[in-house]
């Protein structure tokens, strides 16, 4: 087994599913059964009506991730699963920060810091102001550190959403899935197109 296979790193797992009650649990237990922590989980509608999209982030080796994706794809209501490293996706997380309006009004430097970090005010009230940023984990974390000395009242960060760089979407695939005899391309196989790497004959 190559080293690449066993090194742990963040993987973004993208799952296209039917919209079915109970499916979240069915997918979640595939991780929990193996005592794998889910770093982030987001479900949302996909580009196709009635098809849901899960984005799950875990820190694991590629070997483990590949086995997990096969187990997920085996579930009846799952259409397709992909996994990607952070380099293969464009991803964002949204964060909200609540700080006291008084402090911001008093200290001009805070407003400057917020602007420098791309934060945007969502709500400004007499007693508090809520700022929002989107970005990678380091970026949203950075603003926590900056605001902490000024009395950060509340902080929350969303799950990660990710778009796969090298993907043409799911529309054409779905049409294949709807056929009784689908074409070969619906069941991707990492051995395909990598024959020379896999076979030692």
């Amino acid at each position, binding site marked *: 087994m190559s080293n690449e296979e066993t090194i742990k790193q963040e993987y973004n797992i993208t799952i296209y599913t039917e*919209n079915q009650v*109970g499916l979240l649990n*069915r997918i979640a237990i595939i991780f929990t059964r193996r005592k794998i922590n889910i770093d982030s989980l987001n479900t949302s509608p996909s580009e196709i009506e009635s098809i849901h999209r899960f984005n799950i982030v875990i820190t694991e080796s590629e070997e483990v991730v590949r086995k997990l994706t096969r187990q997920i794809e085996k579930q009846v209501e799952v259409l397709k699963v992909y996994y990607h490293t952070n380099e293969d996706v464009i991803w964002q997380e949204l964060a909200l920060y609540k700080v006291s309006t008084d402090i911001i009004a008093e200290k001009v430097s805070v407003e400057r810091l917020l602007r420098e970090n791309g934060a945007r005010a969502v709500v400004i009230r007499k007693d508090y102001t809520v700022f929002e940023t989107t970005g990678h984990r380091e970026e949203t974390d950075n603003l926590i550190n900056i605001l902490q000395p000024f009395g950060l009242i509340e902080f929350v960060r969303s799950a990660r959403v990710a778009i796969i760089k090298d993907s043409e979407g799911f529309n054409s695939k779905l049409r294949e899935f709807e056929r009784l005899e*689908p074409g*070969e391309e619906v*069941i991707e*196989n990492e051995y395909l197109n990598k024959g020379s790497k896999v076979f030692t*004959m």
Partner: protein
Amino acid sequence: MEVAQQEILTQPATKATTKVSGSVALLEALIAEGVDTIFGYPGGAIMPIYDALYDYNDKLNHILVRHEQGGTHAGQGYARTSGKVGVVFATSGPGATNLVTGLADAQIDSTPLVCITGQVFAHLLGTDAFQETDVINITTPVTKWNYQVTDANEIPEVIAKAFYIAKSGRPGPVLIDITKNAQIQLFDYEGYTKCEHIRSYRPKPIVRPQYIEQAAALINQAKKPFILFGQGILLGSAEQEFKAFVEKSGIPAAWTVLGAGAIPTGHPLNVGMLGMHGNYGPNVLTNECDVLIAIGMRFDDRVTGRLDKYAKQAQVIHLDIDPAEIDKNVKTTVPVWGDCKETLPLLTALVEEKQHTEWVNLFNEYTRKEVEAVIEKELNPQSGEMTMGEVIKQLNDLTHGEAVIVTDVGQHQMVACRYAQFNKTRSNVTSGGLGTMGFALPAAIGAKYGAQDRTVVAIIGDGGFQMTCQELGTIMQSGVDVKIIILNNRFLGMVRQWQELFNDRRYSFVDIQSPDFVALAAAYRIPGKRIDERADLQGALKEMLDNKGSFLLEVMVTKENNVFPMVPQGCSVSEIRLK
């Protein structure tokens, strides 16, 4: 219910409709699916279905079990011998939770089941109502699919989907939870249409010719090829295709516990059983073959022993219908995804006709060593107390290997699997993956309903029998003909064996007392006999087999016999011990 409507081919709207209850729609669906037998137990939340069943008595044979776990095992036994889907009814709450062991067993052994559970009224869900449990979430990890029906309109589509999912691809258990209001509700019934396609579900991977070609090329250049076969052959009804492949290629073939009988025990290329208590040659030579061909098996740890020392020298070809099994435990050189019923003939066409005489002889040499060290004294002991092995041997002689053998879990199971003769497919019914003690007695009941023209013999230990012996009541009431052999060694034998070998004979809670089994059977009006003399064995087995109807035979066997050979846990298959 957006999903079911999209996914299932619905009836044309022109069809005439009639008002029926959800319960009637359910029973009509079962009949349309070819169901003839249901194993079940009524209760409050499933009463409307049982009320409808009252009028379907002539079309659906309902067997009243004594515990819902027994219902699932009976359903499994039925599925294993018939190849059809086993059907189980249970009520909500405790009725449903009692199904869990059987579901888990069916899930790990890929047995097709459709379990119907009653559920409290939809408006009571989540209120901790009487006999309410969250059955869907409890059973999610142990079902291939499950679904809660809260509206009768869903029933025809959902049941169609349930049967399709249970039996297609890699089979497995499905649970449908139906709230009481949906059972009662009258709706416009438009008839039943079987499900043939679900867009998100791919039961069979597409067969790719390039892998068949690569596999054939590997096999054709192999000097010491070795076949491992499992239940996939039975599940795919590919016994003929498999036999043709083995005979043309001339490759020795060994079986997993659930693969037993896919090719007859006496076939010259059937070299025996794999795994912890399998045969000597198949284990040792796994680490000497050059090409390993795994067919419809999943490299369970009881088969592979220590993985990092398992067949490392071999190129591995894996034929399986479930893509998730490829590379799960053993790294594959050529993955042949697909139904082996389709892939095996393609492979057979490309392999050269060969005889690996020298290589096959090597297996026979190991067999000779094993006979000398283990088998002879197990099957033909000259003195001392009876052995489990000799009981199986005598049974083989009397049934000529034609019987269905149902086993429980433990020493007797390993002995029976090792020594029972299987001339026919679908003859070995046992709890393989889960190792469920208590499986055999109810499974034997189902096995008989699934194969009514065959003799069904349940072989059970004194421990396992006491886990589900209430099913004697089911036998009494249904009149089903099941022959029961209890191999009584007055110990929980397999655990005792491990304690002897690995825990310095510290026999911790393995000394189990039993009731008078023959008297217990008599209380259920089942005739029986207990023997402890070798001289009585053959006569007693004959009496059991000749008896019209069920019979319980208790055979007192050696207390501290061990099952050998054995691959100790954590050891490589080549470190198999003969003593």
